[in-house]
């Protein structure tokens, strides 16, 4: 018995030593890239990474290992701030990359100007997923504020995607009420009054709507909506694109201090530039994101995206930092909406 235990202990020691050696070896290989991304890009980067690795191999002869880490956008940004050695970050909001920049100095403050299209190789927007036949007749943001329509959306306090949803509603309200903030606030409040659940993340809301059968309409990223349609069948749901919505620009950035420490700046830069090439733009459109260069994508993939009149966060809210401060910080507009809603 005793020797058995000692044996086990030895084996554990050997295993621990082996793990240490293995990790050390992996860290020494200069051609590893870590892309820290957010949840809904899982499928996208699964397709893009091998394509880039193949191109890089053909160009330089180097074998490139690309690791992808996915999670909530804010949590991912915090992991990078706390020391996760990301070489590139591809997150849901510019605000999250701004936070990495200001809290660690690992990314220069003007990062968003370094790549074309505000550093967004793909964009998306906010649409509505409704049950087949659209029984509640949801066509526009106004319909979400009608009494008796149950709206599923995640919590803007915990989810980056939910902040896009909220800003979509707000931007539409401003347009509808000719810039009257009070009326817009009432309008957005009415929408959130219709929300029986606020999940912590966008995927959670998708599950609540599609699998738990809760609610009449899900406010979602366009690419999430198409994924849900693909996953759960077009016989159960349909996508309603509002005539006006927000242009969601998920940005990408190089983490300068980390790539310099890892010595793989060239590969990391090439990786981000690759996202703008025809090959990547095709993959992007296939994964239901709107490509920055639509002329490079397949016509039939583009046919899925209806024409929507877009407004941008920079245009309507003066950028993410301002939107964050005014709407989502403690004591911000969203807190007020919820406080008043609690007294209902």
């Amino acid at each position, binding site marked *: 018995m005793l020797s058995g235990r000692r044996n086990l202990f030895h084996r554990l020691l050997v295993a621990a030593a082996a793990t240490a050696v293995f990790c050390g070896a992996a860290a020494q290989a200069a051609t590893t890239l870590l892309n820290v991304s957010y949840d809904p890009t899982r499928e996208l980067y699964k397709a893009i990474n091998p394509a880039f690795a193949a191109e890089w191999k053909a160009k330089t002869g180097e074998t490139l290992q690309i690791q992808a880490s996915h999670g909530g956008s*804010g949590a991912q940004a915090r992991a990078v701030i706390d020391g996760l050695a990301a070489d590139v970050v591809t997150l849901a909001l510019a605000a999250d990359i701004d936070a990495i920049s200001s*809290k660690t100095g690992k990314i220069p403050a003007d990062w968003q100007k370094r790549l074309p299209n505000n550093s967004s190789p793909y964009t998306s927007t906010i649409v509505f997923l409704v049950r087949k036949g659209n029984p509640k007749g949801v066509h526009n943001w106004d319909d979400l504020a009608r009494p008796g329509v149950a709206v599923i959306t995640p919590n803007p306090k*915990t989810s980056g995607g939910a902040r896009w949803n909220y800003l979509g509603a707000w931007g539409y309200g401003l347009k509808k009420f000719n810039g009257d903030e009070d009326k817009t606030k009432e309008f957005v409040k009415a929408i959130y009054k219709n929300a029986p659940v606020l999940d912590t993340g966008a995927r959670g809301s998708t599950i609540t709507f599609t699998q738990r059968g809760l609610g009449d309409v899900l406010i979602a990223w366009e690419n999430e909506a198409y994924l849900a349609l693909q996953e759960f069948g077009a016989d159960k749901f349909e996508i309603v694109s509002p005539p006006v919505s927000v242009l969601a620009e998920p940005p990408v950035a190089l983490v300068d201090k980390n790539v310099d420490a890892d010595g793989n700046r060239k590969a990391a830069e090439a990786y981000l530039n690759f996202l703008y090439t025809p090959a990547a733009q095709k993959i992007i459109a296939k994964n239901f994101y709107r490509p920055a260069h639509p002329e490079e994508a397949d016509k039939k993939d583009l046919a899925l995206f209806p024409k929507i009149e877009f407004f941008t966060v920079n245009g309507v809210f003066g950028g993410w930092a301002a939107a964050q401060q005014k709407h989502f910080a403690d004591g911000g507009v969203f*807190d007020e909406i919820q406080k008043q809603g609690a007294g209902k």
Partner: protein
Amino acid sequence: MSSLAQRGGLGSFPAPSVIPGFRLTFGFTLFYLTLLVLFPLSTLVWRSSGLGLSGLIAVATEPRVAAGLQTTFLISFLAAVTDLFFGLVVAWVLTRYAFPGRRVFDAFVDLPFALPTAVAGISLAALYAPNGWFGAPLAEIGVKVAFTRLGIYVALIFVGLPFIVRTVQPIIAELEVELEEASATLGASRWRTVRSVLLPPLVPALLTGFALAFARAVGEYGSVIFIAGNIAYVSEIAPLLIIVKLEQYDYAGATGIATIMLAISFGSLLAINLVQAWSRRRFGHV
């Protein structure tokens, strides 16, 4: 939960023992506990100390945080009380009666320990959602479980149950059936036997189980988050508010809530321990 005091007392601190190496193991215990428990917890307090006491009070009295703390501690308490009753019943049946499949049922009790909490939350939400197996019939009689405070209660009962069962089971196994028989032959009613013969020795173990179930419920995140609905002022738990603060990169605020939770938890556990010590003096240790 056997205490040091019982084995030779605190007075004879390094009491000679059959197994040598007390000093070494005691040093190891202290080191281990400090490194793995006390050190991380003190970092928490240290990180929130930037707020100062007034800042901490400001965080705690913020209406939304106060509501979250109330939800967490109140429902955790109710769930632990519920588990106390049902856990005792389950432990009693599993220990005292032989029936086919007893070992299997006994193993089932541990599942909430082993299951990733998120899985528990997702399964419970699926069951109790308005279109779920339990949720649909309940919805027909007008009871909403998932996405309300009731949902949180159900999830916390689920994760807390094994703590009561596993702490009480060995004590029940030690209780001699002869005591009950003696009580009965001496003319005591069934209820009197339960009250005066069976329950007293179980009280310390029940309290331990209660403290563990309560502590687990207070810290619970994964299993609750999917079934709670997370509506501010209604069904938002305190751990969620910590995540909310972190999403705003407000580390001080997040650790502030955590410190408050730590203080309340520590206070409640201390109170439970005092009651336990008292009950041990009153009923004797089994």
